[in-house]
């Protein structure tokens, strides 16, 4: 579910086809994300799932799965 949501956000914000977004896709090296993309994605996730994502955590995200796992942990927490 979270992965699907994240794929939709990456597709809308970064204009990347959903089938090219994999759990192991590297945000910066493969998907060519920049800080503005990440800010938009994080804000949308925070609003959708009513969570807060810390700046230190954002800085640690490397692949798509890192974000999915972090959001999952936040929701469960």
């Amino acid at each position: 579910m979270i992965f699907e949501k994240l794929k939709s956000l990456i597709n809308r914000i970064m204009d990347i086809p959903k089938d090219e977004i994999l759990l192991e896709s590297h945000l910066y090296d493969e998907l060519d994300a920049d800080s503005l993309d990440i800010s938009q994605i994080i804000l949308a996730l925070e609003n959708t799932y009513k969570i807060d994502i810390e700046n230190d955590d954002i800085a640690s995200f490397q692949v798509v799965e890192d974000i999915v796992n972090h959001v999952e942990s936040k929701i469960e927490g």
Partner: protein
Amino acid sequence: MKKRVVITGLGAVTPIGNTVDEFWNNAKSGICGIDYIKSFAIQGSKVKLAGELKDFNGRNHFDRKQFNRLDRFSQLGIIAAREAYEKAGLNNVGIDRNRLGVIMGNGVGGILTIVEETKKLLNYGMNMVSPLLMPKSIPNIVTGNIAIDLNAKGISNTVVTACAAGTNAIGEAFRAIQYGDADIIISGGSEACITPLVLAGFTNLNALSLREDPLRASIPFDKEREGFVMGEGAGIVILEELEHALKRKAKIYSEVVGYGFTCDAHHLTSPAPKGEGGSRSMKLALENASVAPQEVSYINAHGTSTPYNDKAETEGIKTVFKGHAYNIPISSTKSMIGHLLGAAGAVEAIACIKAVKENYIHGTIGYSVKDGDCDLDYVVNGGRSLDINYALTNSFGFGGHNASVLFKKFQDKGV
């Protein structure tokens, strides 16, 4: 020794054409680009008319990610800059990127974005405001965007002098090249603020025409004028150091020879009595070029269609040009496209440059009732062929800003 500066490229997105050629051909034909506002419902608005772009879709020029990051005023600036850059023959040419600059003017920045994000703030709270709000809306971002798009790494600046900004920007670019700070500068203005908030602000200031006939609303120098008509668009000129342009065999449209700018120090919105600040700006531009008033053969007026501006500008012209004022054809581009605010001076500079290049002055359309206070030659019966050596453009802005730039027909043989 100051360097000589020439114009080697032009680009425009206007209510009468989305390219320079379309704009200029329609200007020569006296086409009116003012119409009923279509971008939002005008039921509650006293003002029904504006100069909106026609058949324009920013999405056709940018991919989705780029588009989402650009307020409309940046989009227009980039599109016009790309056209000017291409017309200047700069695509795929090896130039020193560190000597390529950008100096843009605008009046209100990305206010369409500010309005959208304000709605989100008020309706849904602070968490819903886009991270893109600031990088889309700050007035200098059009300059940064053009620099990114065209890889211009040299000097860079943004002029915010309301409706004088486009002219100030070109003047500053002229001066920077004169003093050796850059080889080429992409300069001009862009504006996109036709939205109920801005329309209401200008309406309640009694600055706008309430007329509903598109042909009788923006009527500069006409006795029945009652205000300006808002417009949107962008104008870009490529200014280049003469030797640099000659070396790469660039097409030269005209030379830039003078720049003057002043402040009224009088009132927030009204011009100083007798157009005193504007007259000093014109005088400085002529002195800067060492050109005598009687040598000027065309003035592209600020000519907004407000009662105060057109009277004061007329008086200011008489102060500078004395008896010769009656011999100079003066036209207002705003009669066709409305007032493009921070982009106005740039689009009107293009009208001047084209006039000098083609020896043709576009007319002031819609004029019918003579005003005793405005008794100069406003070119009111269509355009006019005339040999033009020097053409002056004026722009005046809220805050009392006045700017004038003087163009000269290009001749290789010395100044």
